[in-house]
């Protein structure tokens, strides 16, 4: 869904419950949500969500820290923290590892928790390292093609195939009961 004021994706969805004409939902990107919240469009009592956002935005206002953080880049998918903040979407599973300490306060703000207590996959096939390596190799191959380094790209392709077909990457599931 796009932001109501620009073309960027809406990452904040606020339901206003105190409007006399009934509940109203606004969909905004990060930039416009700041504006929206600071305009006093969010009357006192709109509840936890607006407060959480306001708190989070304030948290982010320590400029120097923010500038440094924004440059942080995931070695696997190459996304910067700035790009994540802008789109509101992470680039790959490894982001949760490499941005862990930066994501934790955000998760606590959103969910009020940072530890998953629910369901877990029963078996894990292949190692996380292997998975991350695959993502990284695919990106490097894409970059190599973009630079017209076809020899390098074909080397990478072989490596990817090799990893994909490695027996440890295969599911070792017990026969169905």
């Amino acid at each position, binding site marked *: 869904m796009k932001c109501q004021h620009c073309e960027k994706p809406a990452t904040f969805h606020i339901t206003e419950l105190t409007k006399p004409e009934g*509940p109203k939902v606004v969909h905004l990107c990060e930039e416009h949500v700041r504006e929206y919240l600071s305009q006093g469009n969010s009357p006192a009592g709109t509840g936890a969500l607006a407060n959480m956002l306001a708190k989070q935005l304030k948290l982010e206002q320590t400029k120097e820290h923010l500038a440094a953080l924004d440059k942080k880049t995931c070695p696997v998918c190459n996304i910067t923290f700035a790009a994540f903040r802008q789109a509101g979407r992470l680039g790959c599973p490894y982001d949760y590892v490499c941005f862990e300490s930066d994501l934790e306060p955000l998760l606590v703000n959103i969910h009020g928790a940072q530890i*998953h207590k*629910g369901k877990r996959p029963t078996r894990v096939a292949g190692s996380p390292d292997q998975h991350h390596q695959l993502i990284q190799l695919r990106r490097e191959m894409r970059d190599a093609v973009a630079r017209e380094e076809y020899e390098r790209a074909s080397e990478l392709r072989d490596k990817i195939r090799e990893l994909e077909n490695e027996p440890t990457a295969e599911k070792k599931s017990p026969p169905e009961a």
Partner: protein
Amino acid sequence: MKLEELADKCSEWLRGSGPESDIVISSRIRLARNLAEFAFVRRANAEEKNSIAKLVRSKIEIAMDGHELVYLDVDRLSDLDRQFLVERQLISRELAENEGSRGVAIDLTEQFSVMVNEEDHLRIQVIRSGLDLNRAWECIDRIDDKIEKELNYAFHDDFGYLTACPTNVGTGLRVSVMLHLPALVITREIDKVFRSLQKLNVAVRGLYGEGSQFMGDFYQVSNQITLGPTEHELVANVSEVVPRIIDYERRAREFLVNEGEKDLHDDVSRAFGILCTAKKISSEETMHYLSKVRMGVNLGLISDVEMVTLNKLFVHTQPAHLQKLRGHELSVTDRNIERANYLQEHLLPKHNQGPTNDPNSN
């Protein structure tokens, strides 16, 4: 499979037969899942999206062997077909509007679907008629287990199932219940009710139509957080909140009946009259009046119309459905005419409608 075959059928969740189905239209649960060895969808290029779609499709077909499944390449469908699937709630607007290789596996009884390359690699969803969250959870849990046997899900020891957006991480679970709350809207109590729910970690959204207006007095209640509580706790939380809303709606309906039955009876009868006689009608207007008629039928003020017929009309009078049912594309003006015809075909008592549409039942 041709989508036309689906068009005339009534989705499982529209049966109107589940618990509390006078007020609760449907219970829906979705799980967001991603593959461990691929970048998230937005970060994947065309080739990667292709590989993901191919892989997921083949694995779902293995995992769900024995179910009557159909897989649609959403990127190869026409705009009309995509819109049709959105109206039927089989795919999201986001999947319809995304770019690149993407698809949906649909169970032919329309009890579950799996979207591929939406915001996450997989979005599994189960819909049931009425308030039936526990069964919906059991069902989706089983499907998830089966798919997990075939694919490597991205999972983190602390953060749980990893998702593109941090608001879905952990369980990846979204429980939502669609409610029909016309009496709370008429009595202007709806804000008060929703305000009282704010502290309970649920989000409330109105349902949109073609425009951006709230339509047909439908509201969706869902869990706000996904990380921390277990799936059972999240389901239980929504399951506890919904009966309170149902109770408020029932009391508001009772109040309307007691305080001004003639006014209410007049209002719903006029709405029914318009639907049965209009020569052209927009989908917004249709939703507005169908909503009133639905309440009228629930309160016994209108007879001769079955709930399942009304539930179906809410979906079948939407633009893409109407065009699918009529077999060709229609301009807005033609749609409004066809919509009026379609409503009258289904609302006016006919003696030749066959056994399933017996006007004397109910």
